[in-house]
Structures are given as C-alpha cells and as structure tokens.
C-alpha cells in the first residue's frame, strides 16, 4: 500500500473535507501563505485560496472565539494552533464557549469546530511550548479530544472530527509529522471513540495515546525478544469519548496494566484509566496498575535531558518489568 507521512495524511484529510463541504475553512497563524509552520497545510492556500485558507494575526482568543461563533451558524472551522500550548491564551473561549453554549441554550446551538495542532515535547522547545492538556480538556463535558498516533489514524480521525457536530480538539505531534505509514488511496473514516489494539499480547496491557503508542510498540518488541514478555498495546486514539471496553477486555485477558502518557502525572489520563481498571477489573488484576508519565517537572530544554524526562523505550521497558 502507498505510504504517507502523518503530515501528508492530515493534509489529504483536510483537503478532502475542504473539497467536500464549502463550510469547512482553515484558519491559523501562517497556515496559508507560509504553508504552515509545520507544513501540514502546505500547498492548500495556493490551491483553495484566501476564502478557505486564512492566515491570522497572533490573537488566539480572538480568532478561535471567532471560529466558535461562526460554527454556531454552521461553519465548520478547522483552527490550527501552531502549538497546542498556545491554547492557554484562548482557554476561556475553548473551555467555556465551545463546551457550554449548547448546554446553556438548552440544546439550541452546537459548535462543529475543530481545533488542532501539535501537543508534545521532545524537540527542545521548552516548558511553555510542550503542554499536553488532553486531560484538562477531556475533563470538560461538551468537548471531545482525539490524539492520533499514526498517519492512518490522523487522516481518518481528522475527517471524522470535521464532520462531527460537536467541538473536537485534535492533538498532533511534531515528532510524528515526518513518519510514514500505510494509508489507503480510497476514502475512509476512523470513528471517534474507538480504540485500536495495535499489538496483541497476553502478559501485560500497555494503554497509551499519541506518540507514546509508537514507543510502546517498540518497547513491546524488545520485551518480547529479551524478556519473553508478551505485551498488548491499546492505542486509545480518542480520549473523550473513551473506549473503555477495549481497555477492560484487554486487561481481563492480560491481568496487568501500564498506562503510558507524555503528560505530567498528577491527574493525567493515566489516572482516569487506572481508576477505571481497578473498578472494572478489580478481581482480574494480578498487580496494581502502573503509570508512566513525563518526569514531573516543566519540560526541560536540554535535549538529551528531555529525552530522559519524557517516556522513552527504555523507561517503558523498565516500567513494564516493574508491574508486579
């Protein structure tokens, strides 16, 4: 099958939806004439023009709020945050307006908006540019959060997100943009809220999302080869809605679980999943659920150190072996 990079797959998904629906517009800093800070939208402005692909000033609260307002009338804006970290200057718009306007109107309104961008560390951009707030966003009823780990999922999920009638926050990863995966020619969608077992195994379940899935798969191979540990890797793909069934089924089979994520530990996604597992698989568990997160510190700049701070293959192996 043909291979596409994560970046190309996203671009293809975005382009297909732009062509499919006149209500789809892309806005963000440098998405048009500059071709995207990370080139996700490369060539789209030349092809689709100013009306559909719009460069914005550095006013995230303003233009994201504008997108939310326009979405109330039926526009389907896809807003790029150059870094998802910049959501914090637009937090009120993203958390209050996008999530609550439907409820506060008694269901008269919905906001079919997508807010996407890279949410990750690992490239030496430091503490303020490396936030991964999927936990905080998924805490908010009314919002949806997806974190694709592969090109295939990125394309299928961005298309589903754009067609979704609720706000979908779509978190990517700059370290994945250049990686390639099989992506079919023919159109497809990946449903939001469906996890994907990316590796089957019987001894331990690793639950992860985003790039940590890729690291977990690498770790699984080594654990198999060197430690004879047969690991199942469950890629959540969506954080909210959450495919709890997939997690439970896997843990009921393996009796052991490790949650891996790039976020800081306190109240991370792994905490929610650990709680889920202990409540639904209490008698199935042979050992406590373990969690592996970024070392609990602001993202450090120094690249070799940041590699140690983030989950990496070695840390995953160590954690997997430590699951009693």
């Amino acid at each position: 099958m043909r291979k596409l990079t994560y970046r190309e797959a996203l671009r293809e998904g975005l382009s297909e939806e732009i062509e499919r629906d006149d209500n789809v517009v892309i806005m963000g800093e440098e998405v048009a004439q500059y071709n995207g800070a990370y080139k996700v939208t490369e060539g789209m402005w030349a092809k689709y023009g100013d009306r559909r692909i719009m460069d914005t000033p550095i006013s995230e609260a303003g233009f994201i709020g504008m997108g939310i307002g326009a979405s109330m009338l039926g526009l389907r804006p896809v807003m790029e945050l150059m870094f998802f970290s910049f959501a914090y200057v637009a937090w009120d718009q993203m958390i209050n307006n996008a999530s609550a306007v439907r409820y506060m109107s008694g269901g008269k309104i919905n906001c079919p908006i997508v807010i996407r961008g890279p949410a990750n560390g690992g490239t030496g951009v430091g503490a303020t540019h490396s936030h991964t707030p999927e936990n905080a966003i998924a805490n908010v009823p009314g919002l949806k959060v997806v974190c694709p780990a592969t090109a295939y999922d990125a394309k299928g999920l961005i298309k589903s997100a754009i067609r979704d009638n609720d706000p979908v926050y779509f978190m990517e990863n700059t370290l994945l943009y250049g990686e390639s995966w099989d992506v079919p020619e023919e159109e497809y969608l990946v449903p939001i809220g469906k996890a994907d077992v990316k590796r089957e195994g019987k001894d331990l379940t690793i639950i992860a999302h985003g790039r940590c899935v890729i690291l977990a798969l690498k770790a699984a191979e080594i654990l198999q080869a060197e430690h004879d540990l047969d690991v199942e890797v469950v890629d959540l793909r969506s954080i909210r809605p959450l495919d709890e069934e997939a997690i439970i089924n896997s843990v009921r089979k393996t009796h052991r679980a490790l949650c891996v994520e790039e976020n800081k530990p306190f109240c991370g996604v792994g905490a929610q999943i650990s709680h889920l597992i202990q409540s639904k698989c209490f008698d199935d568990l042979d050992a406590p659920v373990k969690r592996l997160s970024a070392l609990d510190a602001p993202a450090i700049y120094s690249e070799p150190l940041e590699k140690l701070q983030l989950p990496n293959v070695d840390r995953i192996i160590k954690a997997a072996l430590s699951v009693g």
Partner: protein
Amino acid sequence: MPTLEVMKKDTKTNLEGFAAAPVNLSLKPADKIKLLREMIRIRRFEERSLKAYQAGSIGGFLHLYIGQEAVAVGTISVGGKHDHYITAYRDHGHALTVGMGMDECMAELYGKATGCSKGKGGSMHYFAPDKNYWGGHGIVGGQTPLGLGLAFYQKYKGLKGSCLCYLGDGAVNQGAFHESLNLASLWDIPVVYIIENNGYSMGTSEARSSAFQHSLAKRAEGYNMDWDVCMGHDIYEVRAKTEIAMKRAHEKSRPTLLEIDTYRYEGHSVADANKKKYRSPEEIDEYKKTKDPIYLFKTKLIAEGVLTEEVYETIDQEAKNEANASAKFAEESPYPTEESIQEDIYWEVDHGRTSQGRIFFNDEQE
C-alpha cells in the same frame, strides 16, 4: 471621523436632529408605538422578575436592564433578516426585543423546564438562534469574539448581514475584545460593537477602570475603525447612529465601534448591596428625571400626536398583565427532570451517537 464627531456634539444640543433621520422619518405611528411598547415590556418584565427574586422564586444572578431599554430596542429595531445579536449577561432586554416571549424568559429565571434554555442557562443565558439572538454570555468580554464570528459568517456566505455585539464599559478592558477589534478591521468583518456605557462595572466607575481620551469608542482609531458616541436615552438617536453603522456593515463590510451612553437604575445585579454607595441617590434620580428613555419617548410621541395618555396607560397595563401572567406560567411550570441534566451537552448524544465509546464518566453506584 470628523463627521461623526460633529454628529456627536450635535446630539448634545439638538435631539430633534435624529427624529429627522431617514430611518426615523420612515416610521409609521404604529411602528413608533411598537418601539415604546417594547421598552415598556422590558421594564415591566424585569420589575416582575425582581419581585419574584425578592420572593425567593428566582436564585443565582439577576442583572436588570431597567434604564437601558432604548439601547436594545433602538438598535435591534434597525436590523433585518441577516443581522444577528449577541450580548453579555444583562440580556433580558435584547431577548424580548428580538421577539422572545415573556413566558419562556420568566420560566428560565425560575429554572423551569419551560424556560428558553430549559432551565439550564438562567438569567445570563437567554438564546434564540431562530431570532438571530445568540445570547446571553456570562464571562465579561467572552462574547466579543463570538460576535465577530457571527458577522464573519455573513461575509463568508456573501450575505448583506451584520452582527451587533454588545458589551459593557467594563468589558472593554478584556483582551479578547481588543483582539476582536483588530481582526474586525483587518478582515473587513461586518460587526458593530456596541458599548452600552452605563458608567459603572459593578461598583467601579468608568474612570476607575479605563484610561482613555474623549471616549472609549475613540480607541477604534487605533484599529483604523469607524466609531461614534451616542446618547442612549433618545431612541431616535440610537436608531439613527445604529443605521449608519449597519449600512457601513452591509455596504462596505466595515466594522464600527459605537458607544452608547446609558444608565442602569438598579444595582449591578439585584444582589448588589452597594448600589447607592458607589454612586449617589441623587445621580440616579437625576437620570430618571431628565433622561428616562421611556418617559422621553412617551413625551415625544404625545408631542408628535402619535400617542395619548390613555393609549400609554393601556400599553403599560398590558405589559404588566403580560409580566404577571408570565410569572404565573413560570410558577406553574415543572422543573427539569434529573435525566435532563445530561441532555443538551453533545449534539450527537441528543440526536444519536455518531462516535463510539463512553462519553460521560461518573462511577455508576450500583
């Protein structure tokens, strides 16, 4: 914008100037009565809601619009099919003006299932998208980018439309508003930002919250945006200056920052214990005596021979009756069901799931 400046001075001296504006000359007697009736309905509705609050039938916040009626009625009366409206939490006046019913509005205050938001939004969150009314927003300044988006949609679809986005004099110092002004001018978005300047943000006077020259609206110059200042007690002036701004939006797709001076008679919310401490009772009485928008328009219409005391009394009585009836309706309406707490959150949950997986996360306590 010198011409506008002149108009501003103008208003101070010669209120009749605006009665003569085309948008007002075109008003038939019935139209004028309708404008008056809408202002009266707002006031009576809110007086009734205040009673209900004091009786304990309404909780939470209740921000009354009494004194500012000519702003909502005057501005919205100029709008057409593709003109949209969005405001902050002081939203009852705009709601009734766009045509929302007293019943649904009062029931919302009572937190009843028959309320315009099914009892989920409350006083600060009235919405009527079918009437181009987009709320009702509680976070100061938070509605200003939304209003930009409503207006952007008109332009994107090639409609001759606009959005009137209201905010208070205290809200002008929220960052999101500044970002919105720049975007509106930069992208030629047909939005009209209307600062309802009632002189106070809670207990803080305009002078203690904003640094400015001449007027808050003049800040628009920094964004190369047209602006004007307007006396909010004269509905003719409000309509005249709103029409100029709307025309600009419709024909040039250019934004306007319109500051309308007005006054609120009650406290910031009905819970405002200091409403007569941060401003003198004399100040309030002075405004009521000399600038009450309903009284002024009533007098004007009588002078124009369009209205008689008797007709006025009837209109007023009808409004009171309507308000009382709405309170009765609200009283008698049921509260939302417990199940409804988790409805109206996700479109897909209300209309059939399109996604999979768990979407609500409480531990079920078997």
